[in-house]
């Protein structure tokens, strides 16, 4: 177990924040974007019997949320190893 220097700690935190921001943008777009703000636009398209905007609001956003968390978990695991701050 190593202690990070101040610069390393800062770099680690910046990388974490950058990843977070990227994923939160996706989180926002699929739910608030596709499900609420752009719902009328997307509703012009269908998948099966679902209007697309309605599908994002009641199904699609939830599936994306699950993927986002596991992607974050994986990427943070990689980052922890890179900075040697992972727990044994």
């Amino acid at each position, binding site marked *: 177990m190593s202690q990070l220097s101040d610069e390393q700690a800062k770099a680690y935190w910046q990388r974490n924040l950058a990843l977070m921001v990227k994923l939160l943008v996706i989180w926002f777009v699929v739910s608030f974007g596709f499900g609420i703000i752009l719902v009328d636009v997307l509703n012009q398209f269908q998948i*099966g019997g679902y209007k697309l905007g309605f599908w994002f*609001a009641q199904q699609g956003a939830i599936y994306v949320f699950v993927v986002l968390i*596991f992607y974050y978990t994986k990427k943070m695991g990689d980052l922890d190893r890179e900075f040697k701050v992972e727990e044994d």
Partner: protein
Amino acid sequence: MDLKLLTYIVVGATFALYIGIAIWSRAGSTKDFYVAGGGVHPVANGMATAADWMSAASFISMAGLIAFMGYGGSVFLMGWTGGFVILAMLLAPYLRKYGKFTVPEFIGDRYYSNAARAVAVVCLIICSVTYVIGQMKGVGVAFSRFLEVDYGTGLLVGMAIVFFYAVLGGMKGITYTQIAQYCVLIMAYTIPAIFISLNLTGNPLPQLGLGSTMAGSETFLLDRLDQMVTELGFREYTTDVRLSGLNMFAYTMSLMIGTAGLPHVIIRFFTVPKVRDARSSAGWALVFIAILYTTAPAVAGMARLNFMQTIEPQPGQHLVYEERPQWFKNWETTGLLGFEDKNGDGRIQYSADKSVNEMVKVDRDIMVLANPEIAKLPNWVIALVAAGGLAAALSTAAGLLLAIASAISHDLLKGMITPDISEKAELRASRIAMAVAIAGAGYLGFNPPDFAAGTVALAFGLAASSIFPALMMGIFSQRVNKEGAIAGMIAGIGVTLFYVFQHKGIMFVASTAFLGDMPANWFLGIEPNAFGVVGAVVNFAVAFGVSALTAKPPEKIRDLVEHIRVPVGAEAAHSH
């Protein structure tokens, strides 16, 4: 077999299972199995968190609300799942790294102040009690139906059982019991949904069934539903916006950040062995929650369809009241379903037009429980749904009551007022706190401010406006100090409570509302249930403003924040 007897058997059997597991896992393991040695595996913790999290609001109430709100009900679906993304990224790993026992304890340490801790305790109690009111409504509905009594009596029976269950204590803390509860509730939710989806569309997966064509027809189910509701004068199911886009935005955001601010969910992440497990545990919890949440819209749409088809099998051909099915009579007994023959023709007219509509009362919270009966499913399925609803309500109510009890005994008494309190006295205090909370929530549950899911949404708004911002700023800012945090929490929850009370009544007693609960009186058209996000913005603004004007936090707080941002060096997990 008689439905009532069957329900007793199934509900009794599931309770016996929970108690059995509790006794077995106590006998078969030592205390440190839960503490230092192993902690709880993330998949197991995720499943238990899902059971803890999904309450009467999710199980009993939500699909019924969506059934009558259509697209507008999406706020619950996105709001109550999207919060886990925030939890996994912004809070859970850091709070796990810090490794304390309760949420107010973290707030007290980070803001180096017992006053901040006390304010957090008060916020926590307000949110949790409101949440318990929602559970009481759900439990009351379930018991009134299955004991065939009116809602008030059902509520009293429910209060007694919740009291017994929560005070029995140990049962809740054991992860395996909650895993069993999850299994019961998810089977109870999905099995009827699969049956109904098969009946209506021929597709066994409800998630696909909702987007399929009606069995033996070329028409999509959702198109059929849209057509039926618009013929009766309701707005189109798939595009019915809840008040306005802005209101839906605020509602969804309030539920999301409220999820990340509710103490009974957050403390689950203190129990996993490692920081990385806190991240994946949130993911697993969401997987198990998503199974129910992606099924719910199908349950909602199909319940609405079946409900309307029962009352009006063909356009213009209305059901004769004397020939109404048994489920209709049963729910009339509870007082939650009401018919009034306005035109005296002995038939049931259902319409969006209030002067013509004869279904004068359709409590949304009955839909999920009534759904299998409406769809004429076998009695064992109906009994299973009762058991699932009770599992959902009881596990969450017990979790919340324990959060309240630990806030009072651990944070308030032991942490601040009487640090040398004996363990026995601490235990007694927490039991008294639970009893008072149950009595208070039960009393307010006789006239709940909203349907179960709506009441719970209010609790989320309160958590969103008070606890979430304090936690987030505690991790992401080194500048926010104790003055800022305290002022922010008070301002956030104050604004939200004020807004809710002026429209819903002081302590939700409707007669004390000094501004009517109607869109014309709402700020920017945002309903009280959705106001938490505004409170959160106020909280952030006040906290940053006040912090900028007052002294910086001491150096050791800066180190503390640095420390929680990096996973390595976390202490062993706490048992809960």
